[in-house]
């Protein structure tokens, strides 16, 4: 038996839980090992001291005090009990409150920083989704937009856009105010109906081939009379430019004289010179007076005749058809532009080229 084994048996030996043989071996080791012997002696002393410690008496009044405490606990109302806990263990309750407050702050910050941009993104998304419409969806949307615009303009134009006929009607003597109201209301309604009818038909057709430029041009409302005239001039020029002009080559000897005479002739036949580019003149003439104008022009020529380069016969009918189509496409053509169309239908565009001999 070594020292460690001997020391491990101190408790067993003290409690007499070792066999006589083990006790004999242990005592032999102690007799041969003064250190273990001294250790065992110290152990025995400690155990004797420990076992000499007696029980202490319970303080007086233990049981009555215990009853008093139990009664106090019984008397405590559950609400008061929880309030007491609040007071005694403030941290255990404050912590969740702080956590809840932190969570609330975090959610608020998240809402302010992230949720708002997300709403912006949603708006963007809605814009994006609305813009790249599918082929089937787009015309429908255009249709609805046009319908909306058409209806709005049909309601707005009678009051906002005074057209020449409206002006004439306004200038015309009106016997009574009551009658004016009665007369003007159906007129306005009829006009609105007139405009709505082509507009709807144009919308029905126009989705196959919508000339957006023309439509926009025709649609453009003209709020003031001065503007109407300017627009009419612009539209006339554009219409003139769109027509294929007849070209007449005029052989001349005295250039200045011929030019002044040419201007006079154009005015004489109710036309006007649209553009002048060197020896090239573009003039607009009433179709009815074109033959007379041509004859007078032949008189100016040094050779006494003109060379008609393009096919003289202007397809007035085809032009009329073209104008009609344009009107249908536009759908919302004003009466002023209709009048202009009527005028340009009976006009012939002539390009006169002066060739000096």
């Amino acid at each position: 038996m070594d020292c460690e084994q001997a020391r491990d048996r101190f408790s067993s030996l003290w409690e007499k839980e070792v066999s006589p043989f083990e006790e004999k071996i242990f005592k032999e080791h102690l007799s041969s090992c003064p250190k273990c012997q001294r250790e065992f002696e110290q152990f025995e002393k400690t155990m004797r001291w420990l076992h000499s410690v007696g029980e202490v008496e319970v303080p007086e009044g233990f049981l009555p005090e215990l009853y008093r405490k139990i009664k106090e606990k019984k008397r405590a109302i559950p609400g008061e009990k929880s309030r007491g806990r609040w007071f005694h263990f403030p941290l255990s309750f404050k912590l969740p409150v702080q956590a809840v407050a932190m969570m609330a702050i975090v959610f608020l910050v998240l809402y302010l920083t992230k949720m708002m941009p997300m709403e912006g993104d949603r708006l963007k998304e809605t814009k994006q989704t609305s813009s790249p419409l599918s082929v089937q969806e787009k015309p429908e949307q255009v249709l609805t937009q046009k319908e909306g615009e058409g209806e709005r303009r049909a309601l707005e134009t009678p009051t906002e856009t005074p057209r020449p006929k409206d002006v004439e009607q306004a200038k015309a003597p009106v016997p009574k105010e009551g009658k004016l109201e009665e007369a003007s209301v159906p007129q306005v309604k009829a006009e609105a109906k007139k405009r709505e009818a082509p507009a709807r038909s144009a919308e029905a057709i126009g989705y196959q081939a919508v000339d957006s430029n023309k439509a926009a041009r025709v649609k453009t409302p003209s709020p003031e009379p001065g503007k109407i005239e300017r627009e009419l001039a612009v539209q006339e020029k554009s219409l003139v430019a769109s027509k294929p002009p007849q070209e007449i080559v005029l052989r001349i000897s005295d250039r200045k004289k011929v030019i002044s005479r040419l201007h006079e002739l154009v005015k004489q036949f109710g036309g006007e010179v649209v553009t002048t580019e060197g020896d090239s003149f573009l003039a607009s003439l009433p179709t009815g007076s074109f033959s007379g104008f041509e004859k007078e022009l032949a008189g100016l020529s040094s050779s006494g005749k003109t060379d008609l380069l393009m096919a003289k016969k202007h397809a007035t009918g085809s032009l009329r058809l073209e104008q009609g189509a344009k009107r249908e496409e536009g759908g919302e053509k004003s009466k002023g532009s209709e009048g202009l169309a009527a005028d340009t239908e009976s006009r012939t565009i002539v390009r006169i080229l002066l060739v000096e001999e």
Partner: protein
Amino acid sequence: MSTSPKIQKEVIENCKAGDEKAFAEIVLHRQKKVFNIAYRMLGNSEEAKDLAQEVFISVFESIKDLKEEIKFDAWLTQITLNHCRNRWKYLKRRQYFSSHSLDDPIETEDGSVPRAVYDPSDNPEILFEKKMIQQWIQRGLLELKEDRRELLVLRDLQGFSYEEMGESLGLPEGTIKSKLHRARMDLKEVLERSTH
């Protein structure tokens, strides 16, 4: 508890039924044991009294949940040790035991006595006085680890059998024996240190 007479099963059943007399009987039978365990575990009479009363309040409140009346003593010891552990932690956090040392004056019922610096065995007339030794051992116990102190208190001070200790602590007998031996050797070293 080995040294205390066994509480009759009927008393426990009556207490479970809410009989205050039965509860008082249980308290009177077990108050000394509970108080002494608490006192040896905490080393303070006032704390031990308060703790022992809390133990009995817990018994009063939860005895109805006790399924086996035969295990009442083991159950009571478990409650007592749990209260002691909680109170020990509570007092340690407040550094209740920080100033306590084996070299401090020993508190007795007759007042403070200067600690002897000699080996008690050298001056038996002075150092072997019963109360002084009790206090000296008590200080030695408080310097041990809590689980080892429990073993010494139950076995060497309260006289628990290994079986009772096993029931109360939930440990096998062999483990209890080896741990108990380690605890005794620790106490021996603590007491030896204090004399040199």
